[in-house]
């Protein structure tokens, strides 16, 4: 995740004030403004990676193919995660 490129077409972006670093299977996001850090488990890390490199529908399709889960359930999980990350300033809508 350290080197995951962010795309201008992506639905979301990780702000410049947030640093990220992989450790083991997790990813640590450090918000320099709040001085708080958060760790993402492998699934959450993959969701964030896809949401910041692909348009939203493409990201959902990619994740659906990866995790073989009901699409409605997947979108609900994504929405929950996105809400949490937006609320903590770790993610921004483009």
């Amino acid at each position, binding site marked *: 995740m350290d080197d995951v490129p962010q795309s201008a077409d992506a639905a979301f972006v990780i702000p410049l004030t947030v640093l990220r670093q992989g*450790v083991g299977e997790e990813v640590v996001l450090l918000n320099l403004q709040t001085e708080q850090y958060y760790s993402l488990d492998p699934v959450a890390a993959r969701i964030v990676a896809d949401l910041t490199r692909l348009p939203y529908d493409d990201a959902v399709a990619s994740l659906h193919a990866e995790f073989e889960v009901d699409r409605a359930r997947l979108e609900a999980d994504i929405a929950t995660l996105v809400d949490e990350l937006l609320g903590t300033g770790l993610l921004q809508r483009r």
Partner: protein
Amino acid sequence: MAGVSTGRQASAEGVWGATPRSPLTAASRRQVGAVLRACVTDGDVRAAIVSCSPDAVDWIPAAAEYHGISMTLYRELAQRPGAASELHDAMRPVVLDHVATTMRVREDLRRLAGVLDRSGLLWAVVKGPVLAEAFYGDVRWRSYVDLDLVVDPRQFGPLLDLLQDGVGAHLVDVNWRLVRESRRGELNLLLPLGSTLDLHWTLVNARAVRSQFAFPTAALLERTIRMPLSSGDIATLDLADTLLHLALHACLSGGYRLGWLLDIKRVVEAPGLDWDMVVRRARASRLDLVTGAMLARAQRVAGCPVPPDVLRAFGGAIAWRALLRSFEQLRPISSPYRLPLSGQSVTGSTRTNTWTSVAAAVELIATRRRTRSASGGGNPLHHAEGSAADRTAFLADIVADDASAAERVRHG
């Protein structure tokens, strides 16, 4: 013979597993020590953990943290999912804390590097981020909590001004009277994102200790190399000077942390180390006893591949080295009761030969007795005292001090 060999090995494991405040039995300390030793010798960590009792496993995270090798152990656990998963989970909070801290330090470094490089002043980074990225091969697997910058004493004042005015660093050590009187080797600053910065004009902090060696900073900075790190293209000491500095730091700090020995081992393993240069510079800097002692310890304890002829080249001060080795085998780490004579105090007293080292140990014991009841009141360096004249005098003194060290190198 097998029994004797096994007994010696068990004893060696036990002393390194005996971290302060440990509630463990001798048997459990040996088990913890075996896990820690496996980490630094690239041994079978998983097998060592499997052999541990439950109370030993519970103490491993604290012991690894004490020795500065939490990330090394976690790497082993993370690379083998399923092995010791409870230990992996127990270490996770500390490891994530370390990762977040190093991320912040690297970002602070990235920001200040741009400002300092544009100034044309000489500066270099030592330890922390350089060791992690250049010698551990991955930014994640060696922790550090602060940033150490070395600057030419002739440029210390302008660089301090630039850090405060151009970078936004906050000077913590503001007692210029005490700074001048003690001629401290470093000042402490707080960087904008919260990292601590130790700004060194010399790599030997204590004045009395510094005068015994000849390790001039100006010469070190003339030999720096650039390292491509994640924070940018950063100047650092060349390989030989890095090794001498690590040995000096480990030795004067007491030589009791396995992480320091692992740092030395990683640098020794790096391609391109010129041993002739290490020996030559160590002798010229009067660091041969210090360097030899730490290389020998790194070899014995961490399996550091030091060529035999290098150890022979550092073969002086036989009596002192025998004393060091005795304490290493018996008590490398201080007891919780801080007895004045321990492996830490003896190792930290190492100077240029047996006599100067004995004198330093005697002085250390006397100082501890004098200061035992005089603690408290916070760090006097943080109390704003002194004047601009003290600052000016300090800046002049350190230039003279470093020039004096260079003279000692020239005259042998």
